[in-house]
């Protein structure tokens, strides 16, 4: 049996491997290029991407806590950095990631309970998760920009 590997992969038999390594390379699941793009695939990829973005966001939150703990000189400098154009761009992306990961995470919890697994239901809930994340991001930033900066 040929291992299911893409072009350029080495032949199935590995020569200089320890005896414990399987002789044949294990088949891999089909890769991105063999799938027609569909919505549930996009929502799955976005869930991982937004989760990793929030990993970076957690580092920014830790930076905020450190700056607050460092005192009244460090804190405004850190907040000015977040309020800069690049800082705001990052924060908008993190807000979007947060609401998307939240909504899509709830979708995953329903799936884990065995609910909403049909193609129609999962596509509809995917659209709802994406729409929610955009609307919630716009609302939060409208509130944030509307209330003005620090006194």
């Amino acid at each position: 049996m040929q291992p299911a590997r893409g072009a350029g992969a080495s032949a199935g038999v590995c020569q200089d491997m320890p005896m414990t390594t399987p002789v044949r390379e294990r088949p891999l699941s089909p890769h991105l290029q063999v799938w027609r793009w569909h919505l549930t695939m996009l929502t799955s990829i976005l869930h991982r991407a937004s989760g990793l973005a929030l990993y970076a966001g957690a580092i920014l939150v830790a930076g905020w806590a450190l700056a607050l703990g460092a005192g009244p000189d460090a804190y405004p400098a850190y907040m000015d950095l977040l309020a800069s154009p690049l800082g705001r761009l990052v924060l908008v992306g993190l807000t979007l990631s947060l609401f998307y990961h939240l909504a899509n995470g709830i979708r995953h919890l329903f799936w884990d309970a065995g609910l909403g697994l049909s193609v129609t239901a999962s596509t509809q809930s995917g659209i709802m998760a994406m729409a929610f994340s955009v609307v919630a991001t716009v609302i939060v930033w409208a509130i944030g920009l509307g209330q003005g900066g620090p006194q």
Partner: protein
Amino acid sequence: MTDLRTPLSRARGRGAAGHGAAHWVAERVSAVALVPLTLWMVYAALTISAAGYAGAVAFVSHPVNAVLILLVLIVSGWHMHAGARVVVEDYFHRTLGRSALLVLNLFVTVLVTALAVFSVLKVALGGAL
């Protein structure tokens, strides 16, 4: 749903990762906890962004706010460790690189969480004033 596991696999109860479903369950439990915590965090971020240094210290010093911030930090730290671990396990197959990334993930999440938790405690307990 159809059970795709073999009888032996079911009897062992250890699954593909070799240590059972505890990690999977813990990731979901932290996800459930993070639903209300995240929504509260958005409210907290909006409040703090308009508050300035003194306002932020006052906010963090309130016992309920301090405890909720600490819960957000600890539960999300746990959850992001669990999530990133699955990503590493899915995409990295060579033992050395995979192990190195899993250890790095553990160290980074614990360090980031510990720095943030200590700073919040310092402010909440009055060290910053």
